[in-house]
Structures are given as structure tokens and as C-alpha cells.
């Protein structure tokens, strides 16, 4: 059941990335929704689920867009594992720590992804510090908002039910 949920989350992130991002994202600002989903799953489910989710999501993403399958998978596997370890060892339940984790995960992903491409002499990324910082910030904001929304939704439903019950009385 959990695996199905993770699978659906990754597919939904991929679908949003490939379909809606074209209408929402302008210019050079780029959000990696799949990476956000991997870090989210890792923080909530631990390192094993995190790394498997990262491997699956990264490989699918590679197969869809990259000329070389595996680099994105390796980067997301590593990020998923480390985010899962951090999620189990530290209290990451407030927006600021979550922002830091998402930001660091995005930066680490960029370092591994671009580093491997440059190491294999397949692509030249120039000096992408500003782009990586912007993408990490955007990913972190989306990740924190996703956590807030997911956590607020069940409470909101219960509050509505309670309010209706009070009105009936």
C-alpha cells in the first residue's frame, strides 16, 4: 500500500513537472518537483524507502529526458538515502529545518548530477552557482509548502466536522 502511494507520488510529480511546469515556469527558473517528492518521501519514510524512491524516480526521469540513464538516478538515490537518514536522526518537523534539508538536498543533487556529467566529459555546465542556488531555494519553498499543506489538510477536515456538529447541537 505504501509502495503504491510512493509510486503514485512520483508519477504525479513527473506528470506535473512535464505538463504543468511548461505553463507555470518562465525563463531560467526551474523547479525539480520529482526531487521534492523524493526528499518528502525520504523525510517521512526513512532511508530505505527514500533511496528506493530516489532510484526509481531518477531512472524514470533519466529515461525521459537524459541521454545517459543512471546519473539522475544515482544523484536522487544518494539524496533520498541521506534525507532519510537525517529524517530519522533529527527532528525535522518545523518549516525552517525542512527548508534547510530541502535546500541542502537540492544543492547536493546538483553537485552529484553536474559533477558526474563533467567528470565523464559529457556536458559543460559553466559556473552554475546562481542557477543552483535559485533552484535549491525554489525546491525548498515548494517542499516546505507541500509539508504544510499535507499536514494542515486532515486537521482542516476535522475542524469542519467539529464545527458542523456544534451547529447541529
Amino acid at each position, binding site marked *: 500500500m505504501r509502495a503504491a502511494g510512493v509510486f503514485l507520488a512520483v508519477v504525479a510529480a*513527473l506528470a506535473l513537472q*512535464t*505538463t504543468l511546469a511548461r505553463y507555470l515556469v518562465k525563463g531560467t527558473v526551474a523547479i525539480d518537483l520529482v526531487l521534492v517528492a523524493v526528499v518528502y518521501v525520504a523525510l517521512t519514510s526513512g*532511508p530505505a524507502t527514500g533511496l528506493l524512491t530516489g532510484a526509481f524516480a531518477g531512472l*524514470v526521469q533519466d529515461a525521459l529526458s537524459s541521454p545517459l540513464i543512471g546519473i539522475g538516478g544515482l544523484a536522487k538515490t544518494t539524496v533520498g538515502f541521506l534525507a532519510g537518514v537525517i529524517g530519522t536522526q533529527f527532528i525535522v518537523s518545523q518549516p525552517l529545518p525542512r527548508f534547510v534539508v530541502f535546500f541542502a538536498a537540492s544543492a547536493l543533487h546538483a553537485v552529484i548530477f553536474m559533477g558526474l556529467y563533467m567528470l565523464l566529459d559529457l556536458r559543460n555546465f559553466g559556473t552554475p552557482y546562481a542557477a543552483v542556488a535559485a533552484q535549491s531555494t525554489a525546491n525548498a519553498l515548494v517542499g516546505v509548502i507541500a509539508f504544510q499543506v499535507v499536514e494542515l489538510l486532515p486537521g482542516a477536515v476535522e475542524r469542519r466536522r467539529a464545527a458542523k456538529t456544534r451547529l447541529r447541537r
Partner: protein
Amino acid sequence: MAILDIRQRSGYLFLGVVLGHILLISAQVNSKSGVPLLEVVTFGVFSELQRTLSGGVGGIRGVWGNYVGLRHVKAENDELKRQLAAAQITMQEQRALADQARNLQKLLELRNRVALTTTGAEIIGAAASPDFRTLTIDKGTRDGLRPDMAVIAPAGVVGRVVVPSPRSAKVQLLIDRNAAAGVIIERTRAQGVVVGGGDDRLQMQYVSEASDVAVGDLVVTSGIDTIYPKGLPVGRVESVEKNGPAFKRIVVKPAVDFTQIEEVLVVLTPTPAKEAAAGVSE
């Protein structure tokens, strides 16, 4: 580092998965074959999902645009846009023909005068990863698409087909880091190569320091790359700087706004250079 104790179950799993990835990457790097089968199959399956989602989004947008908004004005506007797009394509062809007429190599010009045969395609998806600049279109091998066919828009060059599946195809945009095209400055005929940088600008490389290039010059395809037909607009020179003793550093603003395009044309006619190369190989 107790928190990174690799002897735990997840640690062994992590090592196994990482090792699997490294083997996967190594196998591909060593291979000189074409597109990996996994890429074609995955892309083919996922493009169907993209097509469905794009249809849903398109349907919602269509309902809003046609029935809630100004219905007749929208339809008229669409028709005028189609007519304008057709006129701009015709103008591009005329420009290419005029360039050829000015060229002294008349024998080659005669072969280049063949009108472009194109097929229209709708964009149904964007890249799955923000590090790659690609689009998915709703035409594939069933419509005659093949790898390395040029993709153009009314404003100019969009990119090339890289992975065609039966009912869709992946298009590598000219601004992708791995993309390149042979170009010339229309005013002075200075030759060079534009390469993508992964952002929304192009770099024109290998232009001699002695060449006459000015800000605002129109950059058009040269046709020597065997992918893009000659004379199609690529962009305008945005800045020119000295780059070492031999070459200029030229930044080109693409003619096409890649965030706004909805429909493209795929050039089905082989370029004269490609035909010549095919003839030589035969």
C-alpha cells in the same frame, strides 16, 4: 558518523543501488550505439500519459477560452494566428531563397531552392528534468518523423527531433546544453556555431576576431550541419566581446520564445547537405 552507519540494512541497500547505477552508467558510456532501448520504451509509455494530461489541460483551457471567454473573438484570433504563422513561414522560405540568389555557388543554390515539406505538431509535454531542455510533440514515426529532423516555429528554429516513438517525439531545444547548429550572420555572412547554454540564451562560437559582427545582427542557419535548412532565423546578436586572440564571444537571443510555443513544424524534407552525405555514403 553514527548516523551514516553503512552496516545497517538500508546502508547495504544503498551501496547495492549505487553500485547498480554505476554499472548502468558505465555500460552506456562504453557503448557507441544509438538511443538506448529503455529510453525509447519509457518515453513511448510516458508520452501517452503526457498526451492524456495535455488533452485534459487543453480541454479545460479550451472550454474556458471558447465558451466562458470571448468565443467568437477567440476563434477569429486563432484563425488570424494560423494565417500569420503561415505567412511568416513563407517569408522565411523567401528569405532563404533570396540568400541563395546572392550566393555565387549557383549549383548548390539550385538544390537548396526546393520548398520545405513540413508537418504541424502540437506540444504535449516538457522535459521531465529541469536540467534538460526538451519538449514532447504529438507526432512520431507514424507521421514520418525521424531522428535529427529540424523543428521550426514561425519565429525561427526550435530544435531537432531526438527520440521519435510511434505517436510522439522528443525534441531537443536549441537552448539545451547539448544542442548546436551551424549559423551565419545574415549581414556579413560570418560563419559560426551556436550552442545552447541551458538557459534562455545561445552562444555563437568559432567566429573569427576579424569578422564583422554587431549587436542586433540577425543570425540564420547556414545549413552545413545537415539538420537545419539554410536561411532560417535563429536569433539576434545581443552582445559581442573579445574572447582571446582568435575568436569573439557572442551571445545570441533566440528568435523563438521557448516558453510560449504551442505548435511547431517538423521539416520532413532532407537538407541538401544531408542528401549529399547520403549520396556519398551510398
